[in-house]
């Protein structure tokens, strides 16, 4: 990754009639990074991607790719290539001709085309499948052909619209690693659209979270997880327990808060949110909570509760615990160390949390928790 910005979008808007699909999108993508646009269905991710590709004109705003303003530049003249959600493999062409399609537009000599095609197919581990028909491919193979067909063009930016959503879970996880490796070895900027937070987190250098046409936060996956900029992001990415807190003391780096149930604790301030006033919204990730039969001594804050539900996930166990004074149930996730489920519904338990791992989500909104 370099410091150069390969894509700069400034104040980009897209309206369909009176419907605002994308509003005021300002975003800089660095050369060589793997960037994901993450958001729920219908939030405008695909529209944003298609404006980069040139399939849709922004209603307002500017898209600059590699220093060149894309206004008035048609999709077939842009230095981008796309992997379509449906893969869009040409059904009348075999694998080799699909991959060669774009190269033939460039008038390259036949031998050179063949060389580049077989190299691209090697790269996606489809070496030697040139003469396989488009309709004789599995879902995973189609995905690889689509990838090879776009990458053989050596685009400055590769755009991917939910590239893995049509694959089953195992294959998807495998492809996540393969695509990440490919991206890193080629050094091409990847911009991927996805609604799968795990996919975005495992593959990306940075993630942009979109809600209802608006880009809400752009950060590295770990930052996004640890310091979400608001409640929406916090609940969209991973799971989160929310509870209100009253601010007792504040410094530049910490807040001392009192929350119902857990009592008083000192938590780090979140640089991504507005300064809290008197009240603050607190977030605790389920895996940051300890659950025990006795009051755990080494925690900053503890509270007693009753187990309501237990869900066994294999690698970890989820408990839902009811605590007096907290409106919603508290979710706890515990790694399954010894293949035992220690607590059952109705059991009295203690919960413990360290102040350090509690997330400050800023001024509490009026919305009920």
């Amino acid at each position, binding site marked *: 990754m370099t410091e150069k910005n390969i894509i700069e979008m400034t104040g980009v808007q897209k309206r369909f009639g009176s419907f605002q699909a994308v509003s005021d999108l300002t975003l800089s993508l660095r050369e060589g990074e793997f960037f994901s646009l993450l958001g729920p269905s219908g939030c405008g991710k695909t529209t944003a991607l298609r404006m980069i590709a040139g399939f849709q004109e922004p209603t307002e705003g500017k898209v600059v790719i590699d220093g060149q303003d894309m206004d008035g530049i048609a999709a*077939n003249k842009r230095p981008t*290539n796309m992997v379509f959600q449906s893969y*869009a493999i*040409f059904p009348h*062409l075999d694998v080799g001709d699909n991959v060669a*399609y774009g190269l033939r537009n460039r008038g390259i000599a036949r031998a050179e085309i063949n060389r580049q095609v077989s190299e691209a197919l090697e790269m996606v581990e489809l070496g030697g499948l040139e003469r396989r028909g488009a309709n004789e491919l599995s879902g995973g193979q189609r995905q690889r052909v689509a990838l090879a067909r*776009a990458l053989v*063009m050596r685009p400055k930016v590769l755009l991917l619209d939910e590239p893995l959503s049509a694959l089953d879970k195992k294959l998807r996880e495998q492809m996540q690693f393969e695509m990440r490796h490919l991206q890193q070895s080629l050094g091409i900027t990847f911009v991927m659209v996805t609604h799968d937070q795990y996919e975005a987190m495992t593959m990306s250098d940075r993630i942009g979270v979109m809600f209802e046409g608006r880009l809400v936060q752009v950060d590295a996956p770990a930052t996004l997880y640890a310091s979400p900029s608001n409640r929406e992001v916090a609940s969209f990415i991973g799971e989160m327990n929310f509870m209100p807190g009253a601010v007792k003391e504040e410094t530049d780096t910490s807040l001392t808060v009192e929350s119902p149930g857990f009592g008083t604790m000192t938590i780090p301030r979140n640089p991504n949110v507005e300064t809290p006033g008197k009240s603050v919204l607190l977030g605790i990730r389920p895996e940051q909570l300890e659950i025990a039969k006795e009051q755990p001594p080494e925690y900053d804050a503890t509270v007693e509760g009753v187990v309501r539900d237990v869900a066994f996930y294999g690698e970890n166990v989820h408990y839902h615990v009811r605590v007096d004074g907290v409106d919603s149930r508290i979710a706890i996730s515990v790694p399954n160390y010894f293949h035992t489920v220690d607590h059952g519904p109705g059991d009295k338990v203690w919960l413990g949390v360290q102040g350090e791992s509690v997330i400050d989500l800023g001024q509490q909104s009026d919305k009920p928790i």
Partner: protein
Amino acid sequence: MNLRSETAKGTALSAPATLYVGLLVAAPLIILIAYSLWTQTYVDLDRTPTLANYREALTDPLVRHLMIRSILISAAVTVVTVALAYPIAYFIALKAKKKTLWLLLITIPFWSSYLLRVFAWKLILGFNGVMNSALLALGLIDEPLTFLLYNEFAVVLTLAHAWAPFAILPIFVSIQKIDPSLLEAATDLGSNKLESFLRVTLPLTTQGIIAACLIIFIPTVGDYVTPSLVGGSDGKMIANLIQVQFGAANNWPLGATLSLLAMLSVGFVAIVFVIGASTLGRRIR
């Protein structure tokens, strides 16, 4: 449902069609073959099998001439119709908002009889017809054009108009079936509009084009109404000769022979065309 009752159901469902085809295609064909092997002796039929009719038909230069002309005229009709139908089908499938309305409009010519439409062309193209009157009135010509009617041109024009909807529909269906993201992928890979059309749309619609060509070529070779009404002597086709054999000449065996030969020629041309066109379609990369 088990396999046996599935088969039984299939047989039952296709029974009416089988019966229909059997009675209306197979039976007449057998009768036709039988006739072609007999001989007409004035008012009687000599039923001793002979290939004399075939010999006569194949050696007669008039038959060969009419057969070749029929195939050429039909080929011209096919080319003109499909070439004109393609852009229309393309527009309806990809650009038009009210597809159903457009398709309905296309079928309007069918609401009047075929004969009436042929006569309409006669009125338009005739010596004192609409076209000549308009051109005279505009002062573009000094005397009526005579090359408009009673020749191959008039036959091609009339047939092309009559058969246009049959070409538009199969092509429309084949264009409609193309996944729009394929065209976007072509654009994404650097093709301009023309290149995308030639390298993606066209090869993906070859089946529709072939279907349209066959639907038009095969029946028009055998058309005798249009050539006899607007074709004059230059526009006569093989079917006119066949008609004469079954009518004025009263030589049914020769008529049957000519019909069978026409069928074989058309079948041969059609098969060669299908193989050629499919191969060509597959060669586009």
